[in-house]
Structures are given as C-alpha cells and as structure tokens.
C-alpha cells in the first residue's frame, strides 16, 4: 500500500515511466530506424494498422518501437492518435475486382479465372528456425536482391490487375443464396456513435475489420470445431493493393493513393429450413488492412455466422462476438483489475462479515451444545 498511504503517487508514476524507458534502452543497442521496422516487420506493422484502425505505416512503426514490440499496445496508441484527427472525407467504395493482385488463391476450384497466384507466402515452407538470419549483413541483403532481380525477365512482366471473382461465377449460375429478406443495409460509422444491438451488417464488418486478431481467431476456430456452423471453403483469398478515391467539393473523383488489403470470401452452406427448397451457397466476407490472412479468413467465418448461423452458438451471436473481440476495450478492462479496488472490496468484506456473524448467532445454540459435548470427551 506504500504508494498510496505515503502520498508519493506522482513521483511513483514519473519514476515508473523513466524505469520502463530504461528497460527499453539499458542494453545500449543500436537505435531502430522507423524505415527498418516498416520494412522488415511488415506483417507486425500490418497487424497494428488493422487493429489500430488507421492506415499509416510510419506511425504504426513508431508506435511499435515506442511500445517495445507489443502489437496490441501499439494499436492502442494508433487508435488514440486517430481519435484526435479531423474526419475530412469518406472515400468512394474500393473495388477489389480492380486490385493489383499480389496473391490470389481459391480452395473451392482447382483452376480459377486468371489462375491461382501463390504470391508471397510462407504457407508451404517449413517453420524451421533460420540461423543464417542471425548474422545477416548488408552484403547478404545486396547479394539476395541482385540474384532475385536477375531471375526476373523484365520483358515478361505484364500488369494483370483484373480478374473475375469466383463468387461472380457462382452467382451467374444461380447457386448463391439471394440476400435475406430483412437485411438491414444501413451504413453506420462505429467511431461516431455508440452501437445498439441488433446492429446492421455495416457495423459487423467495421468492428471485425478492427478487431483483435487473437480474439477473432479463437471464436472462428470454435465455430469450425463444432461450436458453430462448421467448415466452409475459401472461394477466394486475395492480397494486393487497391486505389482510394474521394469526391472533391465539385463532385469530381480524385485518386489519393493506394493501400494494401487482404480479402477473403468464404463459401458456406446455409442451414436448410422447412421453407427453403434449395440449400444455396452463402458467402462470408472478410476485409482487413495490410497482409493478415488469418484475420481475413476468421472474419469471413464470423461474419456469415452472425448473419445466419444458429443463435445458440456464441460465435454466431453478434453482441457476443463484436464486444469481446474489440482488442483495445478488452485489454483495458481486463487490465483495470490492477487499479486499487480496496473501497469496493471493503464494502463487500463488511457484508460478508455480517453474514458470517448472522450465521454464527443463529447457530450459537447449536454451538453451545457441541461445546458441552466436546468438553465431555475431553475429560
């Protein structure tokens, strides 16, 4: 209790702040450059932007450095920063059919329009620890880049940006479920108002897009394992860059830059009801900032589950899923248990003591008899 009863609160905080900074610097290693973090920790930065809900790679890298590599804390810093910025525009809807494809796979079909593009992935490599990275030098990097460059035939480079989507093929054949009759198409902005449940689909998509990867993963996994609606098939998973446009005050569309996104369309079967004559395919949708395939896949599973899944399963419950995968709020609240609660605790102590006393008083008669009896045995 020393830090309260000895009025040193402000000093304690100042010292704690300096101490944690000391922990970051005490080994006197080379200062990390923001460009290094952005470049060599690409996936960490992408995760921070996705959970921080702000596409700003340099700021994400800065937050990552500041928070000593804690991705969720860095996302928190980014969110708080975002809250201070003026919202000036809403962009036009991005068109992922126009994505500059870096990676595109489908598990549902062996061949798809434009072909399967494996792209940059470690999926089919072994997770063996690579000791050659220990002493990586600038020479090693230059050597690798030179060799890689040598393998590219510049004459064969063709920019292929547009592929038809797998779901377009299914839709053309009439195999996709028609949209639900009571589908609420209202577009809300979760950063501008408190969300009331049941919430429209726009809320589900926004909140899942900025949810914490681990939380989304756990719930989607539970869904696949039987606590939900089971196993879907990836219609398409894409990673690449998309162009962002805004409308200027005169209404003209302006290109302001591109961002990287990962998109997943999950094909599932809906539950057949007595009324439904045809067991259509349905789509679950996931879209996240940067390269984060796990989150996009899991988001698509949960998104479909929330719309039409069996309600008994927690991973299909909109309120349950959206509230509890919100990383910044969940970390804050769970960690708040570290705050002093002694007044609250004292109040509960008081109550419990009175309850015990009441019980003892009521049993006093019984206790008298037992004491008499036990005295007899002691003789």
């Amino acid at each position, binding site marked *: 209790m020393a830090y*309260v009863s000895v009025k040193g609160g402000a000093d304690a905080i100042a010292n704690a702040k300096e101490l944690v900074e000391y922990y970051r610097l005490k080994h006197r290693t080379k200062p990390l450059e923001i460009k290094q973090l952005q470049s060599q920790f690409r996936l960490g930065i992408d995760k921070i932007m996705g959970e921080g809900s702000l596409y700003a790679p340099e700021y994400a890298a800065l937050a990552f450095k500041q928070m000593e590599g804690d991705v969720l804390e860095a996302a928190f810093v980014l969110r708080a920063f975002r*809250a201070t910025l003026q919202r000036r525009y809403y962009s036009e809807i991005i068109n992922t059919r126009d994505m500059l494809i870096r990676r595109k796979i489908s598990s549902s079909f062996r061949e798809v329009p434009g072909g399967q593009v494996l792209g940059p992935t470690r999926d089919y490599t072994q997770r063996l620890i690579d000791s050659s990275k220990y002493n990586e030098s600038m020479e090693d990097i230059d050597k690798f880049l030179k060799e890689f460059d040598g393998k590219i035939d510049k004459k064969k480079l063709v920019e292929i940006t547009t592929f038809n989507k797998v779901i377009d093929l299914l839709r053309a054949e009439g195999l996709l479920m028609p949209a639900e009759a009571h589908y609420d198409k209202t577009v809300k902005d979760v950063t501008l108002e408190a969300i009331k449940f049941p919430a429209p689909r726009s809320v589900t998509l926004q909140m899942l897009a900025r949810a914490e990867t681990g939380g989304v993963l756990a719930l989607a996994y539970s869904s696949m394992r039987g606590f939900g609606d089971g196993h879907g098939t990836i219609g398409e998973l894409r990673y690449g860059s998309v162009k962002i446009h805004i409308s200027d005050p005169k209404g003209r569309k302006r290109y302001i830059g591109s961002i990287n996104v990962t998109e997943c369309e999950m094909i599932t079967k809906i539950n057949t009801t007595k009324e439904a004559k045809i067991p259509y395919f349905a789509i679950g949708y996931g879209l996240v900032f940067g390269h984060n395939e796990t989150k996009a896949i899991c988001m698509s599973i949960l998104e479909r589950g929330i719309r039409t899944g069996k309600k008994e399963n927690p991973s299909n419950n909109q309120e349950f899923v959206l509230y509890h995968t919100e990383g910044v709020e969940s970390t804050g609240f769970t960690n708040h248990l570290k705050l002093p609660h002694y007044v609250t605790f*004292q109040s509960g*102590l008081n109550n419990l003591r009175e309850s015990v006393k009441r019980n003892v008083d009521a049993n006093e008669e019984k206790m008298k008899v037992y004491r008499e009896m036990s005295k007899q045995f002691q003789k």
Partner: protein
Amino acid sequence: MIENKKFNTSYNYAFIDETTKKEIRRKLLKAVCIPGYQVPYSSPEMPIARGWGTGGLHVTLAIIGKSDTLKMIDQGSDASVNACNLRDFIHMTTDCATTYDTVEATIIQTRHRITEEKLTDKQIMVFQVPQPEPLRMVERYEYKTRQMHAESDYAKMWLTLYEAFVKWGAVMHGADYPVMVNNRYIMAPSPIPRWDIPNLNNAECLYLFGAGREKRLYAVPPHTKVEPLEFEDVKFHIEDFSDVKCASSGYNIAYMDEMFQDDGVSKKFYVNDSNFLDKLLEKKKVIQHSNKYLNKIKDALQRK
C-alpha cells in the same frame, strides 16, 4: 529535420475535438433532463486505457474551462497513481488549476467515492463508471435491458435482491448498490460504498456519470430523489465503523480503510478520504454530509 516535424502533433484544448465535445455536451443536457437514464454516446478513444477512466475523462474534458479548478480522486485518495496520471493528462491539455482541497474544487472527478465533505451548488462531481447498467447482473443482453428501462419493468431486479436476502439474510450488495432515481429509473451509482449512497439524494451539487468503455452518460441533478432499493422489511443500511477509530485522527464517523499491519494479524483503520483526513489532522473546519443513516450512527455513538 522535416521528418521529425511530421510526428509533432499539437492537441486541441482539452484534447477532444470540438465536434465530439458538442456531442457530449448535448447528451449531458439530455441526461440531466432524464435523471438516471443512460444516454449512449460516441466515446472516442483516449490515450488512457478503457476501464481506467475514459468516461469520466470525456465528461470532464467536455465541460472544463479556463476558470475551473480540478480535483481528482481514486478510492478517496488524491495521490493515488491513477488519479495522478489522469490529473496530469487534464492539466497538460488544459493548463487548468488543480487542487487536493475539496472546498476549492469546481470539478471533482472521482473513482468510486463521494467526498466526505459536503459539495455545494458551485461544484460538479464526475464519476468514473465501469458498468453503467444496473440490470446487467440479471440480464446479459443490452437490447433487453433497454426494453426493461423503457417499460419500467424491474421485476427481475427485485426478484434477484429478494433471493439474495432469502439465501444470505441480507441484500448482498457491497458497493455499486442499485438506486431508484426520481421514482422512474434504476441506476448504477458506480462502485461507491453504501456509505456514500445517501449523499446522492437531494444534493446541492450536480452529479454526472461517464462510462467510456460501455459508451453511456447519465446524470443526477441537485435536489433529486435517489433511493436505494429496499424492501419494507429489509431496509438499506450503510457500513458501520462505530466499533473502530481512525489510528491517525481518532475520528470514526467517516468511511474507513482497513489496513493489516506487518505482523499479519492486527488491523488499523484510517479515514479513507485523504483530504478529509488531512483537514482533521490539521484541525481545519470541515462540513460533512449529513443524512438520516449517518445521523442514526451519530445518535447511537452519543448514547454510548
């Protein structure tokens, strides 16, 4: 050095942007017009973690101005680490005057206590609230609790309180005891001890409540009826410290902190409200709240 300039941000007065402040202010006005009713609000992220006082911060930062003096307490103490952090943040973004003295403050942000000293009509108390929904313990779903408040359908709540009494001989709430405001809404007063509950009723000051994580604001205006839920034959009562005395001041008509001593067995009690204790020790004049429960304790002590 162009790169460094990019990351230097200057913040608006009181950190929050004016659009959000206006939204919070409009909602606070409606909250005052519907005492005890929880108004949803945008609750933007702050550089302070959720669950650590963002709601209280939103309210304070939306209302504070150049002429205000801020007091910040956590569990009754101004010097507690979290109180210091929040006070620093508000001071850094407003340059406001700060004080530990309850009487000097115009805005008092508090976590889980009302001051022992009576507040005046020139003061506003802002509560940090973890769980604004008093019915959450009997109903998990937000859309159902909202309906229950709309229809004044509080049967489930009364039943739960009654069941606790049947099981344990008393309504088992320690802190955050549910209250009925203006004969209409059941409200969560935040986890203040039962000792503080009677001071919400018919007060001189304005009470504002902010729950940041849950995104709700509510209010109790001055001179408003606030009654703890109780039964005809099972009445509300406050904690009783008449058996002990404060080890520093000898006072015992205040909420006490219990502290185990280093021998692991003996206990000492201290007045919880740190500024109140300071004033007692400095023999300064204090004006404490008065209510019927406190008066009963004072009478009983006098008769001893």
